[in-house]
C-alpha cells in the first residue's frame, strides 16, 4: 500500500523563505516562560494553516489557551475532556464527512487535528487513540510529549523517561525516580498500520512543520509525536528548552523518523552521538542519577537506536539493494 507515498508525491515543503504567516495559536496565551510545548503546538498549527480544525485534550495547552472569555485560538477549536481528543476528532471528521456527502456543507478541505499531551495519549487516552487510528478516520493526532503530567504538577506518566524525578516518582532511599522505561508511543501508533507516523522536535522547526503538513496531507489517520520540553517540570532554565530538544535527538534518546506506509525513514541520522549524560546536565530531574544508572540508560538508548536502524533496513529492502549495487 502506497497511500501516504502517493499523496506526498508532489509535496511542497515549508521552508524558511516560504514560512506561513498565519498563526492559528495566537499570542497572549498563558504558558510558562520557555515552554517548548506551546512552541511545538504553534509550529504545528502554522504548518496546517487556515484549514485547521483543532481538538484539544485537557491539559496545559488547553488551560493556557482558553480561559473564558479569552481564547488563543484563531481557528475552530473544541475541547471536551482529557482522554478523548482522538474520539472527539473522529466524531468531527465523521460529522463533516456525512454533511459533505449529503451536500449540506461544502468540502472546504478542513483538516481535523487532535492535540494531546503524553498523559492524554500514552495513558488515559490510549484506548480512544487506538480506536480512532484503527477505524481509519481522516485526521491527524499530535502528541505533545513533555514526559509527565505537567498541568497537575509534574506527576509521572508512562512517557516519563527512566530515572526521571517527578512528584510521583521521587528518588529516595529505595527508588531512583521513574522505574519504568518510556512507553514507545510512535511504535504503538505505527503498529496500527496507519499511512503516516512521525517524530519531531521543535529544535528542528522546519522538519517538525513539514512532518505535520505531511500528516494532514495524507488521507486517513496520521500520528505525529513531538518532543516538548517543559522547563518548569524538568527543572531547567527556560532558555534551556530548545537545547534539551536538540540534545535529546543528538544523544539518540529521541530519534527523528517517519513511518510512511509502514516504511521507516530516519530523518535525522546521528552519526556522532553525544552522551545521554550530556543531555541530562541541564535538567535537575536527572541530577540524582549515579554513573551506574547513566550507564544503564546509555546502554538501552544505544540498543533502541540499533533496533530502529534495523527497522529502517528491514522496511527498505530496495534501498539496501540499491546501496549494495551502488
Amino acid at each position, binding site marked *: 500500500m502506497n497511500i501516504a507515498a502517493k499523496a506526498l508525491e508532489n509535496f511542497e515543503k515549508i521552508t524558511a523563505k516560504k514560512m506561513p504567516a498565519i498563526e492559528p495559536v495566537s499570542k497572549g496565551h498563558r504558558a510558562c516562560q520557555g515552554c517548548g510545548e506551546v512552541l511545538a503546538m504553534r509550529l504545528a498549527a502554522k504548518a496546517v494553516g487556515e484549514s485547521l*480544525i483543532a481538538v484539544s485534550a485537557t491539559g496545559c495547552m488547553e488551560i493556557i489557551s482558553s*480561559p473564558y472569555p479569552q481564547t488563543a485560538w484563531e481557528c475552530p477549536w*473544541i475541547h471536551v475532556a482529557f482522554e478523548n481528543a482522538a474520539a472527539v476528532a*473522529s466524531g468531527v471528521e*465523521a*460529522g463533516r464527512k*456525512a454533511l459533505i456527502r449529503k451536500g449540506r456543507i461544502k468540502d472546504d478541505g478542513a483538516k481535523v487535528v487532535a492535540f494531546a499531551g503524553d498523559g492524554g495519549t500514552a495513558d488515559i487516552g490510549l484506548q480512544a487513540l487506538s480506536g480512532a487510528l484503527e477505524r481509519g478516520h481522516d485526521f491527524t493526532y499530535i502528541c505533545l510529549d513533555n514526559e509527565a503530567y505537567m498541568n497537575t504538577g509534574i506527576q509521572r506518566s508512562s512517557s516519563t523517561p527512566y530515572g526521571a524525578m517527578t512528584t510521583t516518582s521521587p528518588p529516595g532511599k529505595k527508588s531512583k525516580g521513574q522505574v519504568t522505561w518510556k512507553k514507545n508511543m510512535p511504535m504503538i501508533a505505527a503498529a496500527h498500520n496507519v499511512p503516516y507516523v512521525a517524530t519531531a522536535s521543535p529544535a528542528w522547526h522546519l522538519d517538525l512543520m513539514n512532518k505535520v503538513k505531511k500528516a494532514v496531507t495524507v488521507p486517513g489517520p496520521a500520528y505525529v509525536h513531538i518532543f516538548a520540553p517543559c522547563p518548569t517540570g524538568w527543572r531547567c532554565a527556560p532558555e534551556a528548552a530548545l537545547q534539551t530538544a536538540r540534545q535529546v535527538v543528538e544523544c539518540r534518546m529521541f530519534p527523528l523518523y517517519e513511518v510512511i506506509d509502514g516504511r521507516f525513514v530516519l530523518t535525522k541520522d546521528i552519526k556522532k552521538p553525544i552522551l545521554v549524560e550530556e543531555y541530562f546536565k541541564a535538567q535537575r530531574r536527572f541530577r540524582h542519577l549515579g554513573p551506574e544508572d547513566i550507564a544503564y540508560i546509555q546502554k538501552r538508548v544505544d540498543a533502541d537506536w540499533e533496533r530502529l536502524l534495523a527497522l529502517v533496513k528491514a522496511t527498505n529492502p530496495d534501498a539496501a539493494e540499491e546501496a549494495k549495487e551502488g
Partner: protein
Amino acid sequence: MGQRVGLEVSLACSEAVKLANVDVIAAYPITPQTHIVEHLSELVADGHLDAEFVPVESEHTAMSACVGSSAAGARTFTSSAAQGLALMHEILFIASSLRLPIVMAVANRSLSGPISIWNDHSDIMAERDINWIQYFAENGQEVLDLTIAAFKIAEDKRVTLPVAVNLDGFVLTHVIEPIDMPDQKEVDAYLPPFAPQQKLDIANPISMGLVGVPEIYTEAKKACQVALEESYGVIKEHWDGFAKQFGRQYNPIETYKADDAEILLVTMGSLGETCMSAVDQMRADGLKVGQVRIRLWRPFPADDFLAAVKGAKSLVVMDRALQPGSASGPVATELKSLLFDRGKQMYVSNFVAGLGGRDVTRADFAGMVKKTMEAQSAGQQMACEMWGVKE
C-alpha cells in the same frame, strides 16, 4: 399516509432514527440496546440511511464522538444502557454544557453489581443530573414517536440540549408490537434538517469548551439549567405539533382514571401499562384507584403533576431504582419535595420494585395499594419499601 406494521420495538427506534435522516451514529454494543444499533448499521450498509456509522471502541468514545459530530453540525444519535451509560457519565455533562442536541435512546437496564442485564431504571437515575432532557416511553409506538420528536426538541434554537429517550430493556426493546409507521414525507414536514446556530467551521472559527474560571462557572451552569427549565414549553409545543402532524398526542404527565381517584399509583416507563390493567381490576373491586404516569422526567413537569394529583388523598409511588442512604427512591424524593414546596399535604408511600428485571404484576400493584390504605387508615407513616424481597 403511513402504515401499521408489526415490529420489534428496538427496530422501531432505529426506524425513527432513519426517518429523522440522522447524519452520524456512534455506538458501542451493550445488551439490551444491541438490536437498535445492529438495525441502524444494516440500514446504513444497505443504503437506506445515508449516515456515518462509527463503530467505536467504548461508550466513552461513543459519547465523545457524538459531541464532535454534533459540534461539526451533524444530526447525531447514539444508544446505550447500564454500564455503557455509566462509562459515558463524564461526557454526558459536557454534551449538555456545550449545548449539543444529541439524541440518545437508553435501553434501561440495571447497573452492576451484581451484574444483571435485565431491566430497571438504576442506569438513568445515576445520570439524573446531567442537564439533559429525559423522558420515558411506555410502548413501541411511543418509542418511535418520541425519538422523532426528540430531534425536533433538541435542535430547537430555544433549547439546544441533548435528549435521552428511555425505553425499558427487554420489556420494550425485545418485544414485537403493532406500530403505526409514518411515511418519510410526514416526518420531513415535521422535522426539518438540523440548522446549527454554531459549529466548527473554518469560515467562522469559534472556540468551544473553554476553561470555566470561578468568575463564570456559576453563570455557565445557571445558563444551562435555565435552558433545561425553559425547554418545558418547547417540549409541549413540539409534542402538540406531533399530534397535529401524526394524530398522536403526548403529554408530560398522563393520567388514567385519576379524576375521582382517592389513591393514585405513580409510575414511569413500561410498567405503566401493567399498572393500568391493575387499576381496572381494583376499580372493579370497588376501590377508588387511579394512575399518574410520568412521561417527562427532566425538566420535571411540576405543575402538570400537581394538577393531576390535586383531587387525591394519597400517592403510591413506584421507583425502579434505589437511592441508598436516602429515605425514598429518586421519584418519590422528587415528588415529596415538590409537595412540600407547594404546601400540599398528601399521604405518600414509596415502593422500589422491579429491580434487575424482577416482574411486577397486577397483584403487586394491588398489594402496594392495600398496604398503603392499611397504614394510612391506621395513621402510620410508611418507610420506603423494597417490594417483594425474599426474606
